[in-house]
């Protein structure tokens, strides 16, 4: 599930969908919820269902379905449960809502005799943040912070410094780490402020997020760069792995003056695996 950039694509835009696979986002999130007006909910679902089966696949592909209390949630799940998407992104989650949505998805998968898709929880309400300890006891595959709805729910004013969402960011990362699942930071909504995006993404990375949402393709490369690895980091990781092959008979060895033990070796392997997946290094 690990990605650096998570790009939202409106589910009602055929033009944007058809070029989405070339935009270098690690995860494309086809959106059936906020980006789609009520009169286009059915056509968007149909379009997304066709697109995920038809378009060349170069990234992971998630779908943000409509909320549980809408008339569309079940239709979205019914349509997409047997499609080749990689995950459902479930909106407005708290422990109870996630449990109910997951139950429906699980039952639908069983009924259609297909594997259940991983379900990522969008945390965008005070209750969502507050019930994280209970939520991570459920079958949640990732946590995704949605700061805009959260701010409205918390009566907060959103600022570019994002101090107001510090607690939520920390809570999301903390609980993702406890559970051992991926955590994704909220999008930076001023798409013309690239310096602001840089600042916000650096902050999110410092908090420990694995990646960040994008609402415009031009945000992708900056986020990929920030949440990826530098050439120097990859050279170090590859060097550690090369050295480990030479010292296969010892548990601890020295590389560039530092001790390498099993956790460091695993970290280097993880970096190289991800970098390969992201196309940063070749076979």
């Amino acid at each position, binding site marked *: 599930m690990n990605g650096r950039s998570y790009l939202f694509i409106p589910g009602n835009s055929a033009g944007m969908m*058809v*070029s989405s696979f070339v*935009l270098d986002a690690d995860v494309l999130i086809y959106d059936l919820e906020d980006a789609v007006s009520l009169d286009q909910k059915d056509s968007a679902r149909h379009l997304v269902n066709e697109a995920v089966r038809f378009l*060349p696949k170069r990234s992971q592909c998630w779908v943000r379905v409509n909320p549980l209390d809408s008339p569309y949630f079940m239709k979205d799940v019914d349509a997409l449960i047997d499609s080749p998407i990689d995950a459902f992104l479930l909106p407005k989650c708290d422990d109870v809502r996630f449990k109910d949505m997951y139950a429906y998805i699980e039952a639908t998968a069983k009924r259609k005799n297909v594997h259940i898709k991983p379900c990522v929880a969008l945390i965008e309400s005070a209750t969502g943040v507050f019930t994280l300890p209970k939520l991570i006891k459920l079958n949640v595959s990732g946590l995704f912070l949605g700061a805009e709805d959260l701010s409205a729910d918390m009566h907060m004013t959103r600022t570019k410094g994002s101090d107001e969402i510090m607690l939520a960011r920390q809570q999301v990362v903390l609980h993702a780490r406890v559970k051992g699942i991926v955590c994704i930071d909220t999008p930076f909504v001023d798409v013309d402020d690239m310096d602001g995006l840089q600042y916000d993404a650096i902050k999110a990375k410092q908090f420990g997020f694995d990646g960040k949402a994008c609402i415009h393709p031009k945000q992708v490369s900056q986020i990929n760069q920030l949440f990826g690895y530098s050439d120097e980091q990859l050279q170090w990781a590859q060097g550690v792995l090369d050295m480990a092959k030479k010292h296969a008979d010892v548990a601890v060895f020295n590389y560039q003056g530092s001790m390498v033990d099993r956790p460091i070796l695993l970290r280097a392997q993880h970096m190289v695996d991800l970098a390969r997946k992201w196309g940063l290094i070749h076979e």
Partner: protein
Amino acid sequence: MSKYLPVRPYQPVDEYSPMIWENKKQHRINHQVQWLDDMNAMLDALDLFDGMTISFHHHLRNGDAVMNMVMEAIAQRGYKDLTVVASSIFPVHQPLVAMLRDKTVTQIIASYMSGPVARAVSEGECEAACVLQTHGGRARSILMEDICIDVAFIASCAVNHRGDISGQHGKNACGALGYVMADALMAKNVVAISDSRVEFDAPSIEYTCVDMVLMVDSIGSSSGIVSGTTQLTKDPAGLKIAHLTVDLLDALGLVKNGLTYQSGAGGISLAVTTFLKEKMKQKQVVGEFASGGITRALVEMLEEGLFNHLYDVQCFDLDAVESLKKNVNHHEISASMYANPNQLDNKVNQLDVVILGASEIDRDMNVNVTTGFDYQILGGSGGHADTSYGATWSIIVSKLVSSRIPVLVDRVTTITTPKDDIDIFVCDVGIAFAKRHQALAATLKQTTRLPIVTMEELAEISEKLCGKSLTIEHESRVVAVSEYRDGSLLDVIYQKKKGD
């Protein structure tokens, strides 16, 4: 009256022979230019006849008023069967359509054609097949007298007391007048049509070439030289292509001191120039020159010391016009010096790299920028084939699928630039090299992060997205031909199917 038409089939040429040419007008130093202020008096003074060949230039692009002004006056006098040799035709030249219909004009020879006239030609409204040349090929054909011009009507931004012509002065200054210099040197009669009489040195065209000056209220509007094709793309896929292209140039070792560079005026090509600028700054390199149609982006690079010289055959915006006027390292050159294949010291032969667009490209890398898939004429070579031949690396940049129409096709509708002259295709899905560069492609694939693919892989993705292209029917009549820069016949353009 027989019309000009290339017949010799295109063959790849490694090296051209030098042009043997003499400026027959240079001795006319005591020559007196005739000054007129009335169109009818001007036409009376010329020896006009049915079947004559007259020429115009397109430096004012869609702001040009001279061609319409002259053609309407000639049409009123009832002359027929004219060949119009215009360096380009734009939508503003719509009045020509009626003249095609009443046979005032029976052939057009141009390097680019768009708008209502192009539509009329595509629909078979022109009696003889039109000829779509390259910019360099046009200069060659005029200087070598394959095409003989009876009268060249030159929209002149300014004239001075001697009758010299300048593109850089006057109320409608449009900058370089590179495309009309061959006409001025070779036409039997040259009429400068101007709305500004001012004094200046260093003319674009010397008075020795000029027979008459006609002063008019307005030659058009220089603001029309900026067109929609000269805007930087905002399309994320287009921007990705531009970034990929600059990364590719870097990987090929081309972002270096002494770089010689040209780009087309399409949105993606302009984005490449913008990103190249950043890369050159980052690597602290200085290019030797950029050439061709000059834009603000290139002017800024000259002013920031990223290029030593600009060689300008046409200004694409008013910043370029201003720069040409004030910057001694911004040089006006003729179309012959720019791209005439038989002028061996031409600028295109010195290019390291050219970045160009495509309406269609096929698996062999033939490129079409002349027609749509439906045989509708949409443009023309301009300098496409010239620069592709001359540059060490000719790089085509385009989305793989544009507005749900595939750019990569089995066979291009019209060959504008032959496969022998194209090296690389960069699209939003990846980078493909011509077959002759496969060893290099394999090396780059192994040693860089560039998404190197084959044309076959791209074709597979394109077909998955768009389906198999249908064969579009056409009428049997040939309405135009695509002429290679050396005067050979590259391809024919059929009349659009009626009712399409």
